[in-house]
Structures are given as C-alpha cells and as structure tokens.
C-alpha cells in the first residue's frame, strides 16, 4: 500500500516542480552571467537531459536514500531535512499536544450539556480559532507579548543566542536541556516555545473541540448510552462510556489534524524564524530549489503515512472489534 503511494508522490512532486516554471539556472547564475555560463550550469545540474531521464536518475537516487543536493545550501537535502525535522517536531509535538489537551476535554464537556452556557461560549471561541489566519495570530502575539509587554523573547529561533544549546538526545531543546540539567538552556527553550506552541494549539484546538463535541453527541444519542441509562448506571459511568466510545473517532481525527497542520506549521515557523522543516520547505519553494522541494514533499508524505500507521496501531490496541485482538 505504502510503496505505490510513495512512488506516486515522488512522480507528482517531480513533475509539478518541473512544470512549475521555476528556473534555478537563472537564480544560480545571477544577472551578469553569459550564455556559456548558463549552458555550463545547466549541464552541470543535469537539466539538459530529457525529462524522463531526469526522473529516472532522481528516482534511482531516492531509492538509495539520496535526495540530491540543495542548490542553495550546497548540502545533501537528506541531511538538511533530518536536522530540521527534529526542530519542527518539537514545535508540532507540544502544539498539537496542547491543542488536544485543551480541545478534547472542552469538546466533551460541551457535548455533555449541549446548548448550555459552556457550549455557547466555547462555540464562539472555537469559531474564532477557526477563522483567525495563523500568520496574523503569530504576528499579533509577537507584537503584544514581545514588543508591547516584553514578556516573550523576540520571534527569532528556538533558544536565545546567548545560551549554548544542549547536547542532542531527543532533538527537543527543552527536553534535552532538562535531561542534562542545563536549566538555563531549558528555560530559554521554554520561553521561546510558548508563543509558537500557543499559536499552533489555538489553531488546532478549534477543530478538535468541534469534532470532539460532534462525535460525543453522536455517542450520547446512540443505543448504547440510552440502554446504559435504562440500566440505571451512574452519571460518572455514563460519561466514561461516552468517552471510551468516542476515543477511536477522536484519535483518528487528531491524526488527520496532525497531517493537515504541517502546512500551517510552515507559516508559524516563518513568523517565529523557527528554522524547522516548514520554513525550509517554504524557502525552497520561493527560491526554486528543486531538490529541496521534492525532498520536503516526500518527507511530508512519509510523515503522513507514519502518523496514520500510529493511529491504526493505537486504535487496534484500544478497540476490541479490530482484527488484531
């Protein structure tokens, strides 16, 4: 299942980038280059070959784990992507974690008393979360909390320039700093994390609230809960039944939400100069860095596959009806 999907992704990104009208030769050669220099660079990059041949060469290299070299950084794309993935994952992990930690309980509570005051209030808030543009939210947060109030550090990276980052263990500066008891680094990483994580959490919590509420309402209206009431089960037990029966669709939704958030991620990373994969991909697209764009899209596809695999495994564990049991 996964293999043909990935081949398709490689093919489509390759083609889209080629027909996109980007010309890295012009960008590399600069405005003063002569015609000979143009041909030379073109030949050097292999762009004088027919398209199908270029694709075969690229495909062959991808299979061997070689994503090519970035024309901008002159470093292997795979290396760039690996280091930057950890940087992005830190933000994604805390952001979606906080988003789910807020969204799921709030959605459940709203469903337990539909159209109550709590439900009305959260409905308005989640509507706001839906409609606020991410980059705008990030900029406003920086404006308020850094520029006006001075509570937050400037949106420039993951850790203060004055602080030396901790040794690589998990890739998260916060966790790594805590592991080696480097409180200064951990503290700096935490303060830098707060705004972008909050930004991502707000954007992700809104749909999670809405979806959790809808899922729980459906479970509450089900035969199972009606029968549980007929059995005289206590309200606590009923809520536990609602929660457990909502778990599978909620987890599935959060999974799709994660894969959908990577686009949003690149905007947030851009605003906060986070330096992660999203910012890298966005840069590569703007600058016409073919190989980097291809590597970026391929990584995102692999990431989605991985997330869905994790979702499937989790569901198989908690769900007695799955075939695993």
């Amino acid at each position, binding site marked *: 299942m996964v293999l043909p999907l990935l081949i398709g992704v490689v093919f489509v990104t390759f083609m889209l980038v080629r027909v996109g009208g980007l010309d890295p030769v012009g960008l590399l050669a600069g405005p003063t280059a002569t015609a000979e220099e143009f041909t030379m660079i073109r030949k050097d990059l292999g762009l004088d070959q027919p398209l199908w041949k270029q694709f075969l060469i690229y495909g062959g290299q991808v299979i061997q784990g070689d994503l090519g070299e970035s024309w901008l950084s002159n470093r292997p794309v795979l290396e760039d992507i690996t280091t930057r993935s950890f940087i992005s994952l830190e933000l994604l992990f805390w952001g979606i974690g906080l988003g789910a930690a807020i969204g799921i309980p709030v959605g459940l509570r709203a469903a337990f008393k539909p159209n109550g005051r709590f439900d009305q209030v959260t409905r308005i808030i989640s509507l706001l979360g839906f409609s606020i543009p991410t980059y705008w939210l990030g900029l406003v947060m920086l404006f308020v909390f850094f520029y006006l109030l001075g509570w937050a550090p400037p949106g420039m990276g993951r850790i203060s320039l004055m602080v030396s980052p901790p040794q690589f263990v998990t890739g998260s500066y916060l966790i790594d700093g805590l592991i080696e008891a480097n409180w200064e680094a951990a503290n700096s990483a935490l303060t830098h994390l707060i705004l972008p994580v909050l930004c991502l959490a707000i954007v992700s919590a809104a749909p999670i609230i809405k979806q959790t509420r809808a899922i729980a309402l459906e479970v509450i*209206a089900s035969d199972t809960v*009606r*029968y549980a009431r*007929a*059995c*005289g*089960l206590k309200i606590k037990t009923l809520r536990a*039944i609602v929660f457990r*029966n909502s778990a599978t669709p909620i987890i599935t939704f959060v999974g799709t939400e994660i894969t959908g958030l990577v686009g949003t991620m690149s905007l947030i990373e851009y605003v906060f100069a986070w330096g992660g994969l999203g910012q890298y991909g966005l840069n590569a697209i703007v600058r016409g860095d073919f190989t980097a764009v291809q590597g970026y899209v391929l990584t995102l596809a692999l990431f989605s596959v991985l997330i869905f695999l994790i979702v499937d495994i989790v569901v198989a564990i908690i769900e*007695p009806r799955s075939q695993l049991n």
Partner: protein
Amino acid sequence: MNLLKITDLQTHFVFHDIDNYRREARALNKVNLNLNRGEIVGIVGETGAGKSLTAQSICGLLRPPAKVVGGSVLFLGKELLSLAEEDLNDIRGAEIGMVVQNPKSSLDPLTRIGDQLVRIHQTHTASAISVARSKAIAMMHAVGIPDPEKRFSAWPHELSGGMAQRVLIAMALMNEPKLLIADEPTTGLDVTVQAQILELLKDLVRRFEMGTIIITHDLGIVAHYCDKVAVMFAGEIVEYGTVTDIFRRPGHPYTKQLLASTPEKLKLNEAGSLGGQPPDLFNLPEGCLSQDRCSLASDQCRTPPPVITLETGQTVRCHFALQ
C-alpha cells in the same frame, strides 16, 4: 396496591420554530394502564402509536424534544415522574428491568459482557465482585447461554443476535426487578429464536413473579404469551382487557380492524382491513382520534368518547362500545 399504575400520562414533542413559535406533537394522550405482580401485559399498535414512548416515559428515558406534560406513573405507590435523575437511576436497572429492541447495538461494545452484568449488579447493590461474578454466571446460565464461564469474557460483537438478546434479558434480571419492560424484544430475530426467547421470558417472569410489559406489533406474540392486552392508537389506549376477551370479542372498532389485519385473515378476504393513516399528531381531531378511519363514525364522534367497561371487564374508549 398495583405494581404499576399509569394515569392520564401525556407526552408531547415540543418544538420551537425559528421565530420561537411553539408547536407540539401530542404523541401520548391520556394513557391509562394498571399492572399487577406476575401479570404479563402486551401493548400493541401500529408504528407511531406511542408504544415505545410509553415505556420511555415510564422510565424517564425521554430525550428532548419529547417531554412528559401531564399525568402520573405510580410504581409501588411512588410517583416516578417527579423523581430526580439520581433517584430514578436507583430504580432503573434495579427494580425496573428493561429489554430493548437492538441488543447488539445497545450493549457497550468496549466492555466484556460478563463485566457489563457485574457492572449493573454492583451499581445497584453493595455486593463484592466475586458475588456479582457468580451471580452473573448463574444468570447467564438461567437465560440459556451455553458455557457461561467462557462467554463471560466474550465481547458483544462476538455474539449472535439471539445470544445478545439473552444477555440483555440476563442484564434485566440481574437485580431481580419487580417490573420488566420488554420493548419489541424479538424484532429482528429469527422466528425460531424468537419463540425460544419468548418462552424463556415467560418462564422467567413466572418464576420471579415480575409484572411485565411486552411491547410488540405482533398479535401472535400477544395471544401466546400475554395475560392482558392494551391496544394503542394515536397515543391512546383504546382498549384494555384480558387476551381471551379481547381476541374473542373486541369492543373497539379499531381493535376489530387490527385483529382482522393479520395475514391469515387477510388471505380469507374478511372485510374490515386497516385503511388510512393515523391522525396528524400536530393537529389531532376533536373528539375520537380514530374517527377518520372508523366505519362507524358519526357526529357523536366529534365529542370525546367515554371509557366504557364491558361486562367482561375490558375497558373500551368508544361511543359505540356497547353496541
């Protein structure tokens, strides 16, 4: 004292339109029913007559927009309609057992059936888990589930429809209720399984001396398994009496039509099969609710019909009951 005494029970569906205009569907109109210990009452009627709604109103299981707007339900002398949810919870599943229509979708899919039986027992009694467990296994045995020790840890989705219905009956009987309400307990089951389940139910009802309400639209079930029958039409009980009396001499024109509508009778081409539609619940006619479908209807039927008790003891809600 009656086990259950329902007086003038009224349940409406209350809708508020966008301009806050209030509309009401009068789904139950003055339902009256008395039930004694050890008695099996069948409630029959066509779809939408309010059979299930009656059961749900008794147990406080209505969800908006349905709402009880009047009447009283006395269970062992206690008014159920004014009880708070927590107090109702002490009665539901303990003193009133319920068997519902869709056993497979009603059981909690994420809890093993043995644990569900234990859960309902421990919710209502202070018994230890080992006691509840052996009680659950004994009850599974009583309802004819083979190999109960092994089935104890089965998941609901692993059961057949008939087995799941047996589990539901076991659930209902776990706390030895005084009243059992079976809402279409055999709809969706094979005919052979249907007979087994009903035989089992009847046997258990006699053994535990429960008052029982069986809701069905199958007249055959009523004839075979019930002592009394209540015929419902448009949210009213139009006739109530013993099965023998009503099947031998139905007093209400609607009951006559209903009895004539069984497939066997229709094949014999007897007159009086059921035509027409039940009345619009938003806009019920003045007087007798079945006047539009009744061949005897006259001007007199524009006034509310009296409830007449015949010499057999059956009660009939009709102007012409004595004719």
